[in-house]
């Protein structure tokens, strides 16, 4: 066995030796964790209880929470099926499929032809806002309402506060969309352990690591997004080889195509359809689509505002003619993912189907034809993503210290910066495994230039205008030099959540700018803070109490982490270092029991500083141990 496993066992034994009776936060204590599938159409929360994964139902026994939020003139917004029922009668205040708007500017949303459904505020803010009876709301706030509902459900069912959650996102989500999702979680008061890509979560749920080594495909067609991921599995490691997709293609588009056909057949003028009627048409389209899974033909009807009823018939051939072009688009992405992974269809072991839209027999048929195999549909396609997220959350929160599972994901779209003439210079190509860090050097082009503007974009096209603008920032204070003399190193780092941070440094003068990347289509930190304060005053929660609680949680985490590290590898420390760390530990223990969040924060930072070198040495030792252990294993 690899040596690091041995190390871990040693760690646990040592921990047992030092744990004291009555210690409340013992490392082996089961912590509450959940996996959340924040879907376009429906959302879901799941958890691991007594070794089994279960999705959690509401009081009425419903597992799926419709991702619909209805704002009311007074009181808290309504979330779920109640809200969905009001979609036709109160369309302007009832927001569905908000996932489509996450991390998007108003112009993008209108391109997707869905802006007419809501009363978008025409403002200068880069973040679109929808006008409702309860005031203006941003997509992040709408998503936060859905997350709050799931949090409440989980905490009521499990009888305690959630330590952490894993939230899933489409693999093809760009940085802005991921950041928006994380912001929504923060607003909902959730501690996000990881943003996990939906297809990877599905692969985990299928337990593909158990037994079936090889290359697997996850085909995920949801209500509003499409993802394809190709993974290689080996001894518990899920290595994503490539991913492709479309964040604006899903079952909703099937409904829209069918809806347009219905309206056309009924002889309705597409331009004069009211918001309420549009919803009614889509609901009828969705009903017909689902009915055609079993029937060859289905009767359809529409009722206009004058109460006149149109009746017609939709058969499978017509349905296929309407949706085949959309399915074909997904297959183009499949082809590209195969090529990027450098594998052929013959090498694929199996194809896992995820997302409600893969219930469509036509989708299964076409995907099966493309990959030359029968797609796997064993797990309910609506629940599979939340299930995988729950398994990962259980591991990340520390409930299964011996688990060997490891997920290695990739960035879906290339990251680059704008250069002269509006061209994109790619810094990190798509399908690079994350975390990743890349540095690039730039220089000034004018004599005495003291500032440099950097524009970060994401996408595959050559022109900046064809890519997504992620952020703009400036490095200032460069000492005046001749053109071309300055050496400015810009470092991009993408973490395991797929989130980007950028730093810039002038190499000769050492002028550094750890840049605050302000997302082009995101909320600023101060906006989020204001929303948090706002939401807390609604909930009558004391802001100070919450800040104290947050610092205490963080203090407990670092105390536990450093103490167990000393117990395991204390011999790596010199006597002086040990004294310094012990003093910082003692101080943090004292401050943690006080009531001043600022003091706790300072003590945390002091302990972090005192233990950084130690942490580096431990990591080094564990990697070396892993390499040595493997040599024995390989031969």
């Amino acid at each position, binding site marked *: 066995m690899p040596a690091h496993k041995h190390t871990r066992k040693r760690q646990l034994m040592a921990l047992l030796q030092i744990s004291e009776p009555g210690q409340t936060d013992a490392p082996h204590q089961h912590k509450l964790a959940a996996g959340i599938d924040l879907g376009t159409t429906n959302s879901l929360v799941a958890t691991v209880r007594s070794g089994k994964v279960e999705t959690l139902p509401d009081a009425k026994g419903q597992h799926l929470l419709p991702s619909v939020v209805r704002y009311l003139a007074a009181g808290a917004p309504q979330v779920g099926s109640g809200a969905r029922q009001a979609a036709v009668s109160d369309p302007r205040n009832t927001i569905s499929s908000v996932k489509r708007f996450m991390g998007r500017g108003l112009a993008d949303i209108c391109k997707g032809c869905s802006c007419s459904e809501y009363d978008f505020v025409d403002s200068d803010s880069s973040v679109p806002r929808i006008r409702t009876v309860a005031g203006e709301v941003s997509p992040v706030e709408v998503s936060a309402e859905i997350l709050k509902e799931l949090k409440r459900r989980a905490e009521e069912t499990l009888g305690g506060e959630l330590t952490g959650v894993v939230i899933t996102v489409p693999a093809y989500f760009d940085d802005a969309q991921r950041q928006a999702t994380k912001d929504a979680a923060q607003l909902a008061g959730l501690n996000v352990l990881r943003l996990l890509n939906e297809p990877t979560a599905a692969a985990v749920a299928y337990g593909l690591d158990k037994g079936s080594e090889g290359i697997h495909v996850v085909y995920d067609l949801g209500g509003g997004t499409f993802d394809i991921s190709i993974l290689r599995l080996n001894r518990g490691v899920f290595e994503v080889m490539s991913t492709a997709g479309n964040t604006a293609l899903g079952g909703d588009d099937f409904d829209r195509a069918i809806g347009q056909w219905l309206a056309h057949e009924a002889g309705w003028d597409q331009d004069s359809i009211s918001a309420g009627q549009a919803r009614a048409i889509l609901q009828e389209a969705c009903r017909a689509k689902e009915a055609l899974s079993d029937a060859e033909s289905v009767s359809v009807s529409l009722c206009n505002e004058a109460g006149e009823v149109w009746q017609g018939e939709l058969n499978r051939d017509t349905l296929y003619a309407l949706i085949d072009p959309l399915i074909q688009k997904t297959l183009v992405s499949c082809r590209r993912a195969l090529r990027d992974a450098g594998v052929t269809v013959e090498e694929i072991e199996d194809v896992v189907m995820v997302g409600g839209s893969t219930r469509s027999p036509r989708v299964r048929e076409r995907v099966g034809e493309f990959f030359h195999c029968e797609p796997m549909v064993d797990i309910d396609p609506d629940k599979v993503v939340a299930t995988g997220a729950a398994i990962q959350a259980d591991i990340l929160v520390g409930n299964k210290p011996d688990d060997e599972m490891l997920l290695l994901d990739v960035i879906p779209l290339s990251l680059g910066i704008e250069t002269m003439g509006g061209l994109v210079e790619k810094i990190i190509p798509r399908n690079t495994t994350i975390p990743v*860090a890349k540095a690039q050097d730039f220089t000034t082009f004018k004599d005495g230039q003291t500032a440099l503007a950097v524009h970060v974009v994401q996408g595959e096209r050559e022109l900046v205008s064809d890519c997504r603008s992620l952020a703009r920032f400036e490095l200032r204070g460069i000492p005046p030099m001749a053109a071309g003399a300055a050496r400015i190193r810009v470092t991009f780092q993408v973490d395991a959540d797929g989130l980007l941070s950028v730093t810039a440094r002038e190499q000769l003068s050492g002028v550094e700018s750890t840049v605050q990347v302000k997302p082009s289509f995101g909320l600023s930190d101060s906006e989020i803070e204001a929303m948090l304060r706002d939401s807390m005053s609604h909930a009558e929660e004391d802001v100070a109490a919450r800040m104290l609680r947050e610092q205490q949680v963080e203090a407990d985490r670092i105390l536990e982490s450093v103490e167990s590290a000393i117990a395991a590898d204390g011999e790596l420390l010199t006597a002086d270092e040990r004294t310094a760390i012990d003093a910082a530990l003692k101080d943090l223990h004292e401050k943690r029991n006080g009531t001043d969040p600022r003091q706790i924060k300072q003590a945390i930072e002091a302990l972090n500083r005192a233990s950084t070198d130690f942490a580096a040495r431990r990591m080094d030792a564990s990697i070396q141990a892993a390499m040595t252990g493997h040599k024995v294993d390989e031969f």
Partner: protein
Amino acid sequence: MSVADLSSNFFALFDLPVSFDIDQQALAARYREAQRAAHPDKFANAAEAERRLSVQMAARINEAYRILKDPLLRGRYLLELKGVELDDTDTAFDSTFLMEQMELRERLAEVERSADPLQALQAMAHELARQQDLLLAQLADLLKAEDEQSLQQAREVTRKLQFFQRLNEEVEALEDELAA
């Protein structure tokens, strides 16, 4: 030497000999083991400093693996370790190579007009792969020899391979266009 030391070379990181010939299976296995030790998911509950360190280390392991598993990147990296710099702005090549490249480009431009463009493109991709394999075999031999002349020749072969790399990218872009 410390493996986490950012100045250590990528071969040392995986405890592999510095050589163009590489045991791909051992590399992949060691990569996975290294990530098991360093990946941020193993530090989800750790202190901030440790989590930051883990992101940096995991990023370095990923970069090392990306470079070492790809023959062109590995060759280029080996040349750098041996102090041979590649200048991307240098476009001087022997005339035979330039003629061949021009012909390949003309052929790529004609693909779109052929009866079955995707088929023609695939045939072209195969031909490119064949020529690159020949160059890679040359590179492997040249990098084994330690003398200056071989290293300079290895540099030229690497530059040619980069030319092919750009052509590969154009083939892929065209494939995307044709499929869409």
